[in-house]
């Protein structure tokens, strides 16, 4: 079935000129990832009028995805996410073209996929893989949009060849994929995500279990979808050139139920960089006892603080 493009996206022409809408229509968007963000952004971009999608990822819906993933319903639990995502896009705009890949691409495949697209959206759960995508996009001169929600925090920003890199803004060490993966999955790195509690309103007990690897990321639908809508808006800015995108180190920042136009914090960056210099190599291993003591105290403090906070509630 084919539906008239102009009728479907009639209201868009109140904002975009014919030329701009044509640009949106002919752009190719590459979405890599199976996290909730990738799927929601695909659906939003399809509703904006984008007609060319390359989607890659793996994974099936589980019950725990229900609280935020747009394609997760009781009758789709167990279904493949990428298949479902492609169907949703076609159900919105039957003349869209979707190329689905059911695996995360290797580094070589990544290069050829990025070559075919105009905007890259890395949306993998694994940060180390995301960094890899950002690096490749930068090398090939393609803009990449960061869309990173967690708990009630979210970051959205656009990275191009002329902006800061993702490593710069988050203080990620410059390692290869294997090295990054080791760092990201280490307990010390997870400790450095303590801002999940302070800015993201995670409950301490949950964070503790997350730290031990027993619990997944805490996520909230409204925050995740707000992050995604802002990211889709940035994609529209990049494609049409109608507005100036939020280029790194500028970003949209969602924190404790508030959203604002902001900058990536220097504190987090340097603090992580310093942490890496001290604990990352050789002698640092022996310092871990010290950090264990530090985090122990930190968690006790936060637990105490949260308990008091809960007592205040009605």
């Amino acid at each position, binding site marked *: 079935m084919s539906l008239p493009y102009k009728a479907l996206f009639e209201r868009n022409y109140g904002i975009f000129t014919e030329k701009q809408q044509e640009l949106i229509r002919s752009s190719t968007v590459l979405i890599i990832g199976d996290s909730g963000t990738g799927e929601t952004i695909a659906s939003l971009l399809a509703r904006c009028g984008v007609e060319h999608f390359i989607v890659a990822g793996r994974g099936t819906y589980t019950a725990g995805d229900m609280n935020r993933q747009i394609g997760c319903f009781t009758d789709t639990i167990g279904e493949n996410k990428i298949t479902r995502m492609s169907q949703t896009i076609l159900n919105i705009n039957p003349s869209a073209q979707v190329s689905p890949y059911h695996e995360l691409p290797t580094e070589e495949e990544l290069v050829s996929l990025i070559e075919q697209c105009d905007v890259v959206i890395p949306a993998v759960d694994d940060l180390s893989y995301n960094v890899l995508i950002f690096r490749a996009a930068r090398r090939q001169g393609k803009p990449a949009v960061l869309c990173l929600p967690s708990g009630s925090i979210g970051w959205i920003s656009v990275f191009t060849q002329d902006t800061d890199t993702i490593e710069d803004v988050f203080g990620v060490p410059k390692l290869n994929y294997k090295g990054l993966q080791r760092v990201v999955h280490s307990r010390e790195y997870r400790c450095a995500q303590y801002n999940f509690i302070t800015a993201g309103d995670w409950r301490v007990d949950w964070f503790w279990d997350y730290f031990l690897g027993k619990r997944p990321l805490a996520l909230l639908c409204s925050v995740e979808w707000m992050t995604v809508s802002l990211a889709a808006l940035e994609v529209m*800015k990049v494609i049409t050139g109608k507005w100036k995108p939020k280029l790194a180190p500028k970003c949209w920042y969602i924190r404790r139920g508030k959203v604002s136009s902001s900058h990536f914090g220097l504190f987090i960056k340097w603090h992580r960089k310093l942490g890496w210099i001290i604990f990352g190599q050789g002698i640092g291993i022996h310092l871990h006892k010290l950090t264990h003591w530090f985090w122990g105290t930190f968690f006790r403090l936060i637990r105490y603080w949260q308990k008091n906070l809960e007592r205040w509630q009605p």
Partner: protein
Amino acid sequence: MSIPDYQELFLRNYGIFTQNEQERLRSSRVLIIGCGGIGGTVAIILARSGVSRFILVEFDEYGFSNMNRQIACFTDTLGRNKAEVLREQILKINPEAQVEVYPELLTHDRLSELIPKVDMVFPAADDLAFSVIVFREAQRLGVPALLIFPSGTWANVCILMPESPPVEDIEGVPKLGSYDELKDMLEIRKYKFGTYFYVPFADWRIDYYRAFVEENISPAHIAPSVWLCSSLGSLEVLKVLSGKWKPVASPRYWNITTNAIRINRIGGLNLQTLLVWQRKIMWRLFQTRLSPILEWGQEIWWKLFVAWGHYRERREKQPK
């Protein structure tokens, strides 16, 4: 296959909300009047957050022009009642949810009957006059209400608590008594000019805006902006229902544009205050004997405004 229970479905919420807070969400009831762009998206987000009881009011069916932003509009739901489709989706998200659907226009009596039964009211019909009446009724009956006014890339979002300053103060709508009076006023051309900021702030194209004023075509919307204000609005609802954060309630309100999202205050130092005062003063002036002269002046202003709009658009960088 057995259907997972509530705790399993909303597992990841418990990383943020305590058991108590989530229970409060679970037992809350939300009334959504109008299930289009913002209404539908808020309904789905609330359902995915674990809110379990809904009353949806919508008489309209999905059509072609809804596809660019409405969450449950698909090629296979075209022509079906919006509230019915949303009910199906909500029940597939949370099988224990209770969803009442009213596929009709609400009368005033029905409204006063429904509002006391719920914990949050969301007037999301694209009829401003009707929304104003709903807000008044909600405040009178002591029920918090969610306000979302989107247009193009701009939006206002806030919660109206029973004791908050009313919606008229935020948007500068004259305090007329009845629905018919309000409706008539908002549809007359000279009052429609009060929306002129749609062009500079909400990024409407001037020709589209001109047709909106002169030929009454539907307002312009794009998906990212509609979903952005809907997700921010539903976050505000979650704040009120769970009690975890303090909501942004009138006299404070969110002001969203493509470049910045800020919290404004009624009467604060911002452009919207200027606009509200302008609307208030013009409304008064139009009641006086000056009215014919003003209308003549307005026609000249309109011509200049359209010319300025065209000039502005020409200067905009055009894609190659």
